[in-house]
């Protein structure tokens, strides 16, 4: 099956290894991965910030690039996938041409773990490793797309030792610009999350969004914690040894 990878701007610059692991995983699942080179940012930061005009420009750019391709569009991020599925159609809905593009793109867009589980029914190869993982559910994937059981099922299927996280569905306090505009609350929320992670006994926090992992990981690092953050693609592709 031919799939288009929408890698997201954060993965592109900060976490290219997550993109590489996603490619590897999709290829293991029998997909032929294509990567539209002119993709940039889906426009979510501007949309969430309330900057509709800027978000619309980015959405149009993204739709032009993605609508010119075929097959499922796979995104290693719940929040960027939710942007393409829910908010892009709403942002350009008043324009007949882009509205149609947005609808087509939204129908083709899948978050990585739901694509693997629901569309492909794919179980990756067993992953050896002595780590204990816990799963943090990122808000937009969880509440916008129903990403909850898929990642945990995949982790269990590949034999990762997994412990439950109390407050799994509580926001880590990232929220994009919120983390910079309201640092005190953002950090307080992060500290609650970190305390919950520490209480879980895990040495690795796994998620489907690098943005939340960047936030949690930045807090763990500052506190000198040995707990690591990993995107689920890295774990499932066996890149985390």
């Amino acid at each position, binding site marked *: 099956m031919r799939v288009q990878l929408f890698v997201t701007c954060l993965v592109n610059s900060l976490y290219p290894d997550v993109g590489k692991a996603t490619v590897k995983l999709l290829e293991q699942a029998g997909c032929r991965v294509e990567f539209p080179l002119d993709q940039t940012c889906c426009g979510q930061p501007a949309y969430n910030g309330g*900057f509709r005009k800027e978000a619309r420009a980015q959405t149009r750019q993204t739709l032009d690039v993605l609508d010119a391709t075929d097959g499922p569009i796979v995104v290693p991020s719940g929040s960027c996938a939710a942007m393409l599925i829910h908010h892009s159609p709403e942002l350009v809905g008043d324009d007949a041409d882009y509205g149609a593009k947005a609808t087509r793109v939204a129908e083709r867009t899948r978050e990585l773990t739901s694509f693997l589980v629901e569309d492909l029914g794919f179980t990756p190869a067993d992953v050896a490793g002595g780590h204990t993982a816990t799963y943090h559910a990122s808000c937009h994937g969880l*509440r916008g797309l129903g990403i909850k059981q898929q990642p945990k099922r995949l982790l269990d299927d590949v034999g990762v030792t997994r412990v439950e996280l109390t407050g799994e569905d509580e926001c880590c306090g990232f929220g994009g610009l919120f983390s910079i505009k309201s640092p005190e609350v953002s950090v307080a929320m992060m500290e609650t999350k970190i305390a919950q992670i520490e209480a879980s006994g895990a040495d690795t926090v796994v998620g489907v969004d690098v943005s939340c992992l*960047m936030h949690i990981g930045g807090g763990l690092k*500052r506190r000198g914690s040995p707990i690591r953050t990993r995107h689920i693609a890295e774990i499932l592709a066996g890149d985390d040894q």
Partner: protein
Amino acid sequence: MTTFRERIQDAFAEGVPIAIDRGARGHYEHRAEAAAVFPQMEPMRDRARQIRAEVLANLDVHLRQFADSVERNGGVVFFAADAAEACDYIVGLARREGITRAVKVKSMVTEEIHLNAALEDAGVETVETDLGEFIVQLAGETPSHIIAPVLHKNRQQIGELFAERLGVDYTDDPGELNEIARDYLRERFLTAGMGISGANFGVADDGSIALVTNEGNGRLCTTAPRIHVAVMGMERLVRDRRDLAVMLEVLARSATGQGLSSYTNIVSGPRRIGEPDGPDQFHVVIVDNGRSATLGSRVAEILYCIRCGACLNACPVYRHVGGHAYGSVYPGPIGKVLTPSLYGLEQWHELPATSSLCGACQEVCPVRIDIPKLLVELRNESTHELSAGLRRGLAIYAGVTTHPRVFRLLTRTAALVAGVWSRDGWMRRIPVLRNWTRDRELPAPAPETFHDWWRKRGA
């Protein structure tokens, strides 16, 4: 007035009471349990949303019908354009009738219009009779939660407050504290000339109002005094008792996890001939106070709200900062939309901005208000200078990302620069990002972007 951010900083400096997080989580869990054992919860929420949508779409018609019905039942209706008109009417009524003492049922709209202060200024002793509100009033504070006004206090603090203000021996036993309040309030119930309540719902077709409480104080306030004044936000209508039943199914479950509140009162007017009790006069004050403007705005959906408080309990921001930091009568997610909408976005622009848009509020809202979307709407409307700075930054990013070649060039350049500016994959401190880096490390751009890796791979 201080900014929201300053109030949050102050709250953290003083230490936000642990009781807030614990109380909010408790309500949140009770709601989840109640929803889990009520198979009709989800369809009932859909139905409740439809009911609210229909009422607001035809609010003028329903308001006229409601007012006619109240008057047919022998009640008096007053439409108040704003808080001052509402207070003036009630104060005027108290003066005319020679009222010196009023007892109150807990009501958010009377908090909103600052009715207690207006009555006290006019020499009317005004006593809150909901236990939580009574405590808040004794302490000279404001409620910190829509349905649990005293969430910010623990029982030791309440014991100290009672000892100091009521001259009783110190106790922190909840049962004993409850008895002290009962004794104090009993005499007030029996001697007050006016009982003041809110209205959880007004029923348009028969002119009744529904009141839910857990303490029974609502029954005393609306029957013992000779005058009952019900103050109601103008959006709080349902068409008929059938629709009321649906709203009651979701209200208490969402608020406290109860199937139904302990007391549900339907007040259908003053005492009629032959009836043994009830007030001689029944007044309904319908308050606009910015609601008409909200109804015509892009955030009109906020008027679906039935004040259950579920969104506060679910909200991680509320749990961390508590209700008082919001600076408004309405805290939490609902307050972040309602406050700027009723009182002006320029003054309250920080409220909608201070959210991670996690969506926990929408998930529990009994009428499924899309609060994150409304917050984004308000952010879009805000023209505050803080927003203007961010807009410039995002406009530049939008410019870059709509030109893929420039995007690739700049991300490649960032990767190179980061090689110099970072250590072990993390950035050194960056002054413009100090709000991030004060408490968190920031990862550095990787030496090679995914784009470049992909292109090399293909080659």
